[in-house]
């Protein structure tokens, strides 16, 4: 492992390392990224080991311009508009992949997240290399966001350190948020992770009744059902008192085929329901009475995540940090319910973290 100050590093040297299956840690405008040649199977495998990443979690890649992106994904009109408007910049755009990269870079569904970092050194390296490189953040999964080289090294094992070929040290980076992530593969773009760039969410539906709210929950379940048993699935519910979070959960339970009546878990904090037909467990949590987010962990959350259960968490914003800690291995569907004009109307929006 070599560490070089950014002013000592040359594009040629970095490209040489990348070509020889090397893993390079480089700064971007958001965080330090762990970069390998995304077309090189050995290098990608090394990166996955380095990240200690759960199976099947996609890696996003960086290109130097839109035309390189177009070689690897199909850009629809929404995606092209976003490229024009925001890139280079802290935005990752997910499109349908053309399956030209190493397996494991695209998602299980064949989609690929691409960004164009607003950082000259990285762009020069990609141009010279002629291939996309991975830009996943340089921390191991679940560890501190890397703004300095020490943030990274302090949390790595010797084994992980041994996988790094070269580190480009640019000192402490400004504390920018990770990039915004937007999925353009559906009819309407969905913001999956909110960063600096704010894009208006267009997935917002009007629920006219409790029944509507339940149906929306059912539809959302059907959309993400494919992850059942592969990952834990968390429906993180946010909305004021009486907005229908328990009603939403009732809809979810119906979709899961749970026969028991779902009631508010406020007093009891947590209730577990068995969906016998599909051999699944729904864990309904209410954080309203919790005094600190850590109480969620005291309930055994970590273990339940490992069991890949389905969760509905009311007042999720209170435990947002803890839920986000799991975003690499868990499907998190963040659902916001708000009051609308009429008595029974609610606005429901969602995004996947």
């Amino acid at each position, binding site marked *: 492992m070599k560490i070089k100050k950014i002013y000592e590093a040359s594009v040629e040297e970095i490209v040489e390392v990348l070509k020889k299956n090397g893993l390079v840690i480089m700064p971007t405008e958001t965080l330090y990224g762990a970069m390998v040649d995304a077309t090189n199977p050995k290098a990608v495998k090394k990166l996955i080991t380095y990240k200690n990443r759960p199976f099947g979690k996609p890696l996003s890649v960086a290109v130097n311009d839109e035309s390189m992106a177009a070689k690897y994904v199909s850009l629809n009109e929404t995606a092209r508009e976003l490229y024009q408007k925001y890139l280079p910049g802290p935005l990752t755009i997910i499109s349908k992949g053309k399956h030209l990269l190493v397996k494991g870079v695209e998602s299980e569904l064949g989609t690929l997240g691409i960004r164009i970092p607003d950082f000259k050194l990285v762009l020069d390296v990609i141009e010279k290399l002629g291939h996309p490189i991975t830009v996943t953040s340089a921390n191991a999964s679940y560890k501190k966001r890397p703004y300095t080289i020490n943030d990274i090294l302090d949390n790595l094992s010797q084994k992980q350190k041994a996988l790094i070929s070269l580190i480009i040290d640019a000192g402490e980076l400004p504390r920018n948020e990770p990039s915004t992530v937007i999925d353009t593969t559906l009819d309407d773009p969905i913001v999956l992770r909110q960063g600096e760039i704010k894009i208006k969410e267009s997935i917002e539906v009007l629920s006219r009744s409790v029944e509507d709210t339940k149906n929306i929950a059912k539809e959302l379940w059907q959309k993400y059902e494919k992850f059942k048993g592969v990952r834990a699935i968390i429906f993180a519910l946010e909305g*004021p*008192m*009486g*907005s*229908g979070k*328990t*009603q939403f959960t009732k809809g979810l339970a119906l979709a899961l085929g749970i026969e*028991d*009546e779902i*009631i*508010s878990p*406020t*007093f*009891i*904090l*947590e*209730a*577990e*329901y068995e969906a016998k037909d599909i051999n699944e467990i729904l864990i309904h949590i209410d954080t309203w*009475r*919790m*005094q*600190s987010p*850590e*109480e969620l962990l*005291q*309930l*055994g959350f970590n273990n339940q995540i490992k069991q890949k259960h389905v969760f509905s968490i009311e007042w999720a914003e209170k435990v947002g940090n803890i839920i986000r800690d799991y975003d690499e291995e868990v499907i998190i569907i963040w659902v916001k319910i708000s*009051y609308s004009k009429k*008595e029974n109307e609610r606005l429901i929006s969602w995004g996947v973290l």
Partner: protein
Amino acid sequence: MKILSIDTSCDETAVAITEGAIILSNIIWSQASLHAKWGGVVPSLAQREHKERIDWVIEKTLHSAKCKVQNLDAIAVTVGPGLAIALEVGISKAKELSKKYKKPFIPVNHIEGHLLSPFAQSKYLKPITGYRLPATDISFPALGVVTSGGHTEVILIKKIGEYKIIAKTSDDALGESLDKAARLLGFGYPGGAVLEQVAKEGNHQSFNLPIPMIGREKEMYFSYSGLKTAFYRLLEGKGKDFSKKEISDLAASYQRVAFSHFIRVLEYILKSKEYSQVKQILAGGGVMANVSLRKMLRDITKKYKIEVLFPYSKKLYTDNAAMIGIAAYYKFERKEFLNPNNLDKVERVPRAKVDKPLPWE
């Protein structure tokens, strides 16, 4: 026949020693006393850590009853419903005591405890007053109503130990609904008791809130989520600053409507032919300590010439272990206990229902 009982179903760590229906000691380590001890905010970590305080509470209970475990006849414990990790603490402690001292082990349903809490008798008073009568004076079938932070149930009591839930909540429990209304009015948690105090000064007719399920009482379930929403809307429509008078009126109006819904469903049950033989109602659970609710319940039962029985002390309404001891006593009489060398199958049942046998029964 002396029983040591433990209840750690949710927030309180409770231990009691009972003899039949007579309470020898009844110790509750509650959040309220924690607040007093810490003089304000409780460190949340300590709050649900039954483990750290259970031994101390057991000690205190034994001391107060002047008993030793070896002189007791059985160990009882709540196995559900409740919070799994909390139940676990009481169950393993009870198993430990049962094995160590070779005492029969009696697993009890928390709701059955609330249901039978009106049977409890003080060791200091002879049972002369009307509402502290022993179970032998009950004519079956009777009805039970349990209203607490986590439960709102009307239960048909065919006989002691044989129950059928005939109405329950489909969303929030009554106590929870009051706590949430209190929160919306700016009170801390748990605010139900504060709401009651404030409501005393208020006029319950000042604000118009919809009685839930009105005209649909025959569906025989409770629903408090719509009322909560209506209250939220009402407060939002009125802006932020309320006078003291307005807060009292809002509290009184909310409480009245919440109770009316409860009473209306109960009245439907009392009126129906199916339950016409019922002559007595046993009432328990934290919300039953509310004076206005008890008054409304007395009024409605009077109308149908039914006697209503409440626990004799405030401490018996909220979660406690004395009520578990009473339920355990009847279970023991029915031989529904386990030998200390046969406890492996006993586990927590977080969603136990009072009308369903426990998994191993």
